[in-house]
């Protein structure tokens, strides 16, 4: 009976997860193309350092260590999870124990110690989020769901770890009763400290307790898995592809707009016919810059799903630090929210459906965009190599080139460049005057 329930749960859990992952993937692929297939060696290296080794987290050592404890526990627990899956499907209890012997005890003990470290980290993180009032966790964009999301996952973590220890502790106590002095202990470091608490219980209730822990654990695992695609915690998966596809160019280099290059070349070529019709079958010209998520690149969209909402970007943003509306984290959260909306609309109403809304305007305002100094602090800070600046620039490009919506002082600057080759009103003939002044 238990095996059947488990099999159904497993199929449903994995199936629903796969369905959600496909949805996310198709959403990301709504973006424009960008080539990140070069330089594979450098990409693997970046992924290993930044995602696997969490290199950029260590700019802030204390949260980095705590976060690393949760991460390491999470990764290593997967080994125990395999065993639990086998147990669930076949009913065989702790199958690795007989074959691995002493190493098994060491391995489970190691997992247990990491789990305690993770538990401590989780409680600290909960306190930090809710009691310490770290400013970056309490900004406007974190109100409501994002705040709950952050707490929920930490809460799930606590339940999960509690289940593991209930399971192992009760199992340890039952084992002792069964085997007596011939083989008294599993000897797992932490649960052998817990098991004395269960000593007076009957074998039957110990077994029930063990099963409660077991089922509790596995249900939490499935819940967690399927919660991921709706949560900022999806970063535990997406951090890997996202860092692999990082921008490897110098941060100061903004992308070149090919479509503009073609037009400028035409304008500068005296033999070109400015009124020539575009060649037959030429693709419809793309909009300049970005108005909505579908005008961004798939990497921008992958960025948005990878964002952990940690706010490191915003807490280093000069505009945000001085009270401006701009928050690079909000740029990423808005992009994701809008992408989910656009994706759902397309699935519900067909690919051409237009809900009359757009990322620019309905989510991100002009005031936010014009506050950016393009300083790259957000890009530098992001622990998973997200680039909020490239979204900001593409939205600006749309505003300026498609809608001519430019702050008036900037219009002056642009006219000056066009007319006299400098952002100020100086005559180009005076450019060398400095050499003869003292």
């Amino acid at each position, binding site marked *: 009976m238990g095996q059947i329930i488990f099999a159904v749960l497993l199929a449903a859990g994995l199936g629903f997860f796969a369905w959600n992952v496909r949805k996310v993937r198709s959403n990301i692929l709504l973006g424009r193309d960008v080539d990140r297939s070069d330089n594979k060696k450098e990409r693997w290296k970046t992924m290993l350092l930044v995602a696997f080794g969490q290199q950029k987290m260590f700019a802030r050592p204390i949260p980095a260590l705590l976060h690393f404890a949760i991460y390491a526990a999470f990764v290593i627990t997967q080994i125990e999870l395999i065993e639990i899956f086998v147990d669930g499907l076949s009913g065989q209890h702790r199958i690795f124990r007989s074959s691995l012997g002493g190493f098994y005890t060491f391995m489970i003990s190691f997992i247990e110690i990491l789990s305690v470290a993770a538990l401590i980290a989780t409680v600290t993180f909960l306190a930090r989020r809710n009691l310490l009032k770290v400013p970056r966790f309490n900004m406007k964009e974190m109100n409501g769901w994002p705040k709950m999301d952050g707490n929920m996952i930490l809460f799930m973590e606590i339940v999960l770890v509690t289940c593991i220890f209930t399971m192992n502790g009760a199992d340890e106590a039952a084992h002792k009763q069964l085997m007596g002095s011939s083989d008294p202990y599993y000897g797992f470091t932490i649960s052998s400290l817990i098991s004395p608490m269960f000593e007076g219980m009957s074998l039957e209730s110990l077994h029930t307790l063990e099963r409660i822990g077991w089922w509790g654990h596995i249900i939490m695992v499935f819940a967690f898995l399927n919660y991921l695609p709706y949560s900022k915690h999806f970063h535990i998966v997406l951090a890997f592809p996202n860092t692999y596809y990082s921008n490897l160019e110098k941060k*100061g280099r903004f992308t070149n707009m090919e479509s*503009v290059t073609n037009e400028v070349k035409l304008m500068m070529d005296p033999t070109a016919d400015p009124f020539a019709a575009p060649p037959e079958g030429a693709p419809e010209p793309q909009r300049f810059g970005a108005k909505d998520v579908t005008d961004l690149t798939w990497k921008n969209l992958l960025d948005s799903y990878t964002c952990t909402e940690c706010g490191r970007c915003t807490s280093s943003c000069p505009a945000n630090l*001085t009270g401006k509306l701009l928050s690079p984290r909000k740029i990423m959260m808005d992009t994701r929210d809008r992408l989910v909306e656009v994706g759902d609309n397309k699935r519900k109403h067909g690919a051409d459906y237009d809900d009359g809304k757009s990322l620019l305007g309905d989510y991100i305002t002009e005031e936010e965009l014009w506050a*950016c100094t393009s300083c*790259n602090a957000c890009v530098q800070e992001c622990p998973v190599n997200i680039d909020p600046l490239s979204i900001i620039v593409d939205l600006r490009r749309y505003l300026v080139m498609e809608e001519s919506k430019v702050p008036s002082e900037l219009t002056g600057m642009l006219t000056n*460049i066009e007319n006299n*080759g*400098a952002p100020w009103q*100086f005559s180009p003939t005076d450019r060398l005057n400095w050499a003869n002044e003292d």
Partner: protein
Amino acid sequence: MSLVVPTMAEMMAKGEAPEYLFWVGCSGSFDDRAKKITKALVKILNETKVSFAVLGTEESCTGDPAKRAGNEFTFQMQAMMNIQVLDGYEVKKIVTACPHCFNTLKNEYPELGGNYDVIHHTQLIQELINQGKLTLKGGGTFKGKKITFHDPCYLGRANDVYEAPRALIEKLDAELVEMKRCKTNGLCCGAGGAQMFKEAEKGNKEINVERTEEALETSANIIATGCPFCNTMMTDGVKNFEKEDSVEVLDVAELIANAAEL
């Protein structure tokens, strides 16, 4: 000492080609404060007999502020015009004292066909000192002074140049003190991304005030930088705290020119 500033056109007329093109930039050409930085650099180039020339009236804005403001048309028009001029003179190496020009010429011109070896003036000066071409007599008038370096975003984070300017300051007879946020964590002066040319959006503080406050906390006597825009912003910040009598804002080139008694 009067400055020797040959132009590319003059050089070409004589059938010569300089090693470096000195890209002066709009600030360096027109802004009164930035012109002093330009001249300090020329003094160093003259003293070390570096073969260089400027474009003079043939130079035009790189297009950086237009690109950052989102106007790719204006940027590319400027870039293509400049590339025509640069290629006409067969320019290979460019040195500039403006990190914005530096970034644009180095990173954004290649895709439009302009390929040059571009360096920032602090990198060139470092090279000259390392080669023994420039000696700092007595280390200048900096004895006992504290100098802090403000990283320009387009030199530091944008192009990973953090060491050259610091190496130069360390050659002076002064103490280099770092601000809380420095190098990769450096805080912007507030001028980048075309902000230089407009009022800031509504907020509770100006960015340059925030940054200057941090610089003043180090109790430095000199705020050094390597960008004409940063220079303007920090100078304004110092004025805001009415500290202009005790704290100077200087470009690294000016510090070196002073120390070399040029």
